[in-house]
Each structure stands twice: as C-alpha cells, then as structure tokens.
C-alpha cells in the first residue's frame, strides 16, 4: 500500500513541469515516433532494411549495445571515489549513478532486441521455459549479468528514493552491501561483453587479450562524462551540493583512464604493425582503408582526434579546472568512445570477412532511425526518473505533499 502511494506520487511529478520540460518531452516523443516508424519497416521486412549482410553480420546495433554497457558500468564506478575521497553527497551520487545505469542497461537490452532476427522468440533465452545455453555461450552470461545488474541498481535506487519519500532513515545494512556488490557487477558486465567478442578464434581483430582491459579503460574514460555534466546541471538548478574539487577529481580519474587506454592501444598497435603479419589487415582497413575501400577511415580518425584533444584538455590542470574546456573535453571524449565502440570496434572484425572478401558497411537510414528511437526512449526514461529523484531528494517532495489540502508540486 505504502509502495503504491510512492509510485502514484512519483507518477504525478512526471506530469508537472515547466514549459521547457514539456518542450523537451515533445521533442523526445517526436524522435521516438520518427525512429519507431523506421523500426516498423525493419519489423515488417526483416533486417534486410539494415546494411548488415552475411559478411558483416553484426554492426551498428551491437556497437551501440557495447557502448551503453560501458556507460552503465562507469556510472556506478563513481561511487568508489565518492566513498574514498569522502565527497559529501554520496547518497545522491549513488542514486543518480544507479538511475543512469538502469537507463543504460534498458537501452542495451533494446539494442539487443532490435538486432535479433526473430524478436518474438526472445523467450527461448529465458530460464525454465527456454533452453538457455549456460554456461557455454558468452551471450547467455551477458544476458544473465546484465539482468542482475539492472535489478540490483533498480532495487537500490528505488529503495533510497522510497525511504526519502517517507522521510525514513534508510537501512545502511541493506543498502551498503548492495552498492558494494554493484561495483564488481559493473566490472563484470563490461568484462563479459568483452569476452563475448574476445574468444572467437575466427575473428582475429578481437582475438587479443588486451580487448577486455581496453574495453574497461575506454568505458571509464567516457562513462563518467555524463555524471560530470549532470552534476553541474543539478548543482545549478537544485539544492544538490557538490564541491568543485569533487568534479575536478572525476576529471582527474578520467584522465588516468584515458592514459591507460592510450597505452593499451599503443601496445596493441605496436605488436600488430611491428610484426606485420596477415592479421594487420583489419587494423589497416580501420585506419587507412584497403584499396579503394576507405569508407570507415573518417570515422576512425574522427574518434582518434576527438580522443586526443579530450586527453590534452583533461591532462593540463589549467584546462581541467576551467569548466568551459572541461565540458568541451567531456563531450569530445564521449563522442570519441561512441564512434570507437559503435563503428571502430565491430566493423573491422568483419572486414575483410573470414574468407577475405570485403563488404563495405556503413549504417543504413533504418539503423540510424532505430538507434534514435532507442536513445530517445532511454533519454525519456532518464528524464522521468531523474525528475522524480530531483523532486524527492532535493525539493522535499514527500508523503505529506500528497495531502490534498496542502497540494504542492514542485516545478
């Protein structure tokens, strides 16, 4: 009963807001419909509406999935420094990190669903009624850890909000173990996703022990970029308090991650180019193109250049502590890793294909529209739940606000 009132109270918040809020919602709705119409064509005619073919059988969708796993993992990792360095609002950081993780995982599952040829048969993967190939298939592991991670974050964030809503003290003995558990789980979802690609001997481009470490490093470069900007917005618009030092600390941790990522990548490139075996082919396709096939080259260099500029902006204390350059850097590293995961990680593994044939892949319009749909749904969801969270945590929206006599809804 109490929980139902918490839910109805939360839903009421979603329907109240400023003009800008509703304009934002309208924009997202339009994008969802526009993307959804693209996706409906794919549903009717099959994945032939994408540019994937037998040669390049996984592409943009699975790349987006991979990127979002990184976002989900990195959001929760912020809890560690928040705890270690004793940034004041640790509860708030945990809540928003976990809400972000929830939305990212939901988007991940969305990208898996649209990538599947027969989505109605999804139940074949469910335990008991289906035949999940556990533990042989890495995809079954991934499915498993992602769902646990989703559940974990959902429970913790909902519980914290619920307690605040009823002005109760939350049980530390309940929350702390779960938060601590979600940290290794964050590492687990990312590692499992890397292992998904890693141990396929036929795909030489992925078959490097550095794949999983590079995955994690790149996630920790880009993942904290969203909370970094989000915290600044929250600080300006709500009672959320976070010191400049804490934000700079996040940026400092990001630059360590970037350095590690750079080092891993250079190690990989050195090994490939100095030994110069046949296996170099895939890196060549990514960085320089093969023959006339240079379609993917602009993507890879855009990612490299954005990443390097962001690294420099974050490296020098002067630009790191300037909020303008800091935010530019955050956007750049985000874009860099998005292109790296979305295109540069997946496509070269399939081009040339296992029999040496080159099929040039770039995303089709349907794929882009479908991706827009999923991202818009994710943003919409995040807007809703962060609006609820802001109201409950910062605007003192609680059970008494539901009293009809003292109707008071936050803007």
């Amino acid at each position: 009963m109490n929980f139902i009132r918490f839910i109805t109270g939360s839903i009421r918040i979603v329907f109240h807001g400023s003009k800008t809020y509703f304009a934002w919602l309208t924009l997202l709705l339009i994008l969802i419909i526009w993307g959804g119409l693209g996706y409906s064509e794919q549903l009717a005619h099959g994945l032939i509406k994408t540019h994937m073919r037998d040669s390049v059988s996984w592409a943009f969708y699975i790349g987006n999935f991979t990127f979002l796993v990184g976002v989900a993992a990195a959001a929760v990792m912020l809890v560690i420094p928040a705890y270690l360095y004793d940034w004041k609002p640790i509860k708030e950081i945990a809540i928003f990190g976990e809400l972000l993780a929830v939305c990212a995982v939901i988007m991940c599952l969305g990208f898996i669903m649209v990538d599947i040829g027969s989505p109605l048969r999804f139940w074949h993967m469910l335990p008991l009624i289906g035949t999940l190939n556990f533990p042989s298939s890495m995809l079954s592991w991934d499915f498993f850890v992602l769902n646990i991670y989703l559940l974990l974050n959902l429970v913790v964030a909902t519980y914290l909000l619920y307690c605040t809503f009823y002005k109760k003290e939350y049980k530390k003995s309940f929350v702390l173990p779960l938060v601590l558990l979600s940290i290794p789980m964050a590492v687990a979802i990312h590692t499992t996703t890397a292992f998904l690609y890693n141990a396929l001997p036929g795909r030489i481009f992925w078959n490097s022990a550095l794949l999983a470490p590079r995955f994690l490093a790149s996630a920790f470069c880009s993942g904290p970029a969203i909370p970094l900007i989000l915290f600044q917005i929250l600080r300006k618009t709500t009672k959320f308090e976070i010191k400049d030092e804490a934000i700079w600390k996040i940026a400092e941790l990001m630059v360590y991650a970037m350095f590690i990522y750079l080092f891993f990548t250079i190690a990989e490139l050195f090994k490939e180019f100095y030994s110069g075996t046949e296996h170099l082919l895939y890196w060549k396709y990514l960085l320089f193109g093969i023959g006339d096939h240079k379609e993917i080259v602009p993507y890879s260099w855009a990612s490299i250049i954005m990443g390097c500029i962001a690294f420099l902006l974050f490296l020098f204390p002067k630009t790191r502590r300037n909020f303008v350059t800091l935010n530019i850097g955050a956007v750049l590293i985000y874009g860099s890793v998005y292109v790296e995961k979305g295109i540069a990680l997946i496509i070269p593994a399939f081009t040339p294909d296992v029999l040496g044939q080159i099929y040039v892949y770039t995303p089709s319009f349907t794929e882009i529209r479908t991706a827009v749909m999923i991202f818009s749904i994710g943003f919409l969801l995040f807007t809703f739940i962060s609006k609820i969270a802001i109201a409950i945590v910062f605007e003192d929206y609680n059970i008494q606000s539901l009293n009809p006599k003292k109707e008071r809804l936050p803007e």
Partner: protein
Amino acid sequence: MKKGNSRRSFIKNVSLATVSTIALSGCGSKAFEDFLQQNFRTLTKKEKDEIVKNLELKYKEQYGKEFHVSDEGAIDGTLFGYALDLSRCVGCRKCVYACVKENNQSRDPQIHWIEVLQIEKEKGIDFADSNVQYNPEKVPEKGYFYVPVQCQQCRHPQCTTVCPVKATWQEPDGIVVVDYNWCIGCRYCMAACPYGARHFNWGEPTVPAEEINTEMHYLGNRPRKKGVVEKCTFCIQRVRKGKYPACVEICPVGARKFGNLLDPESEVRYILENKRVLVLKQELNTQPKFYYFFGI
C-alpha cells in the same frame, strides 16, 4: 523509393503488424502453436511426427504440391566426411546452384551455402587475395585455382558453442544442424564461424513453387523464414537415405568425394590413407570433417 510508395508500405507494415498480433493472440491458431513450439531436441517422437505432418499439410496448402518431410535421426555407425580435390576443381559453380535447388535456398535475396574462391596459383590458399565475384567467359582461368568453401562440419564447432539458445548442434553422424523454429536470429554463430558457412535470412526468403524440392528433412532443406540462420547440412535429407549430397552428384569433374569416415572401405577413407590432405585454418583447432586434397 517514391514518397507515396513509402507511405503505402508504411500502412502495409502497420496492418501486417496488427494482423500478426491478432494471429498471435488468437489462442489455438496455427501461428500461436508455432510460437509455442519447443526446441526440437526436447520433443518426443510423437510430437515430432505430428509437427512434421502439420508441416506437410502447410506446405501443400502453400505450394500446391505433395511434400515429404522427414525427421529421421542419424544412422548408427555413420560419421560423414567430405573430400574435395583442388587439382580437379575448375570453378564452374555448378555445385553452388545444385545446392541452391536441392536445399530450397532463397532466390531473392540470394543465399548460397557454397562459395567458390578464385585464387592466384602462386599465392597458395590465401583468403586475403581470393575473389568470390570472378566472372569470366570461361573457367578455369589461366594462372588461377579454385577453392569451394561450405560448412566444414567441424568436430569442434565454434558455432554451436556460442549459440545462446541451443538452436544449433552436432548430430551423432557429425552433421551440424539448425532448428529453424528455435533460432532467435542473434547471429552469434555467424560471428564465430571461421569459414563464413552460416547464412542469415535478412529478408523473407523466396523459392518459386515450380522449383521447390519436395523431399525434405526437418533439420535440412525445408523452407525457412526471415530472421533465422541456415547452413550446409551435407544434404541431410539425402545422405541419411544413402544418397550422395547434391554437390557431389553434380560436379562435372569428379572433384567432390563423400562417405562414411567409420567405414574402412569408403572412398573418403581411401583418400585419407592414400592422398595428402589438408583442412582450412588448421591452427584454429576446429577439426573439420571436410578435407581438401590434390588428386593429380
């Protein structure tokens, strides 16, 4: 595409989606039964027979012909093996099209279970320099040799390990098969296969009714739907009846040999013992049952 056309196709899509939803929600309907059908390997003999009978009726309705769908299991004491003579193959691609016909592969979009690579003689078997799209007036072309590649029927198949729903497996006679009713279309097997042997139905497959092969096996050449993976099964509908695969029969130069690896008198065993054979990508330890050799 014209604008009006896309609008019309949108309306068609929406109505298609609605119809399929209604079809699914209508309890007891065929589509719903299809939707609920379990993994082939978990079915009893009785259930299998009933499904097969229903399929025959369905295909008759659809194509207006009598069909025979088999769910025959492996014959005891058989392990099928294949040998291909690289020195004889002329790259004519007759096997490719015989396979398409025998196995009811989609004509549009085109699916070929066999791909023939053309490679320069001095390069040796080097995939990076191979060409599938060769198109001369006459084959063989001077200075080139040909390597047909299809499912290598590995003893350690990567594709079956990675499948998240156990929709593909190795039969006791060594044939790797797919349950088209259970495959979810995630294409992990395609990422895992080192030989490009797995093919996906990106669109709704089409086979002209007058060309359809009515002798079928449940795990072999029965018509597929869009969104599932398919592959070479050594013509499971033929070899389990003691016939040769279609590609072996059609080959005009006799480059293709097939037989039971457990039978010491078989032709493949003779080749293994008397010729020098090789397998593709040996370093991956997939241990194919598909051997290449030089007969002349």
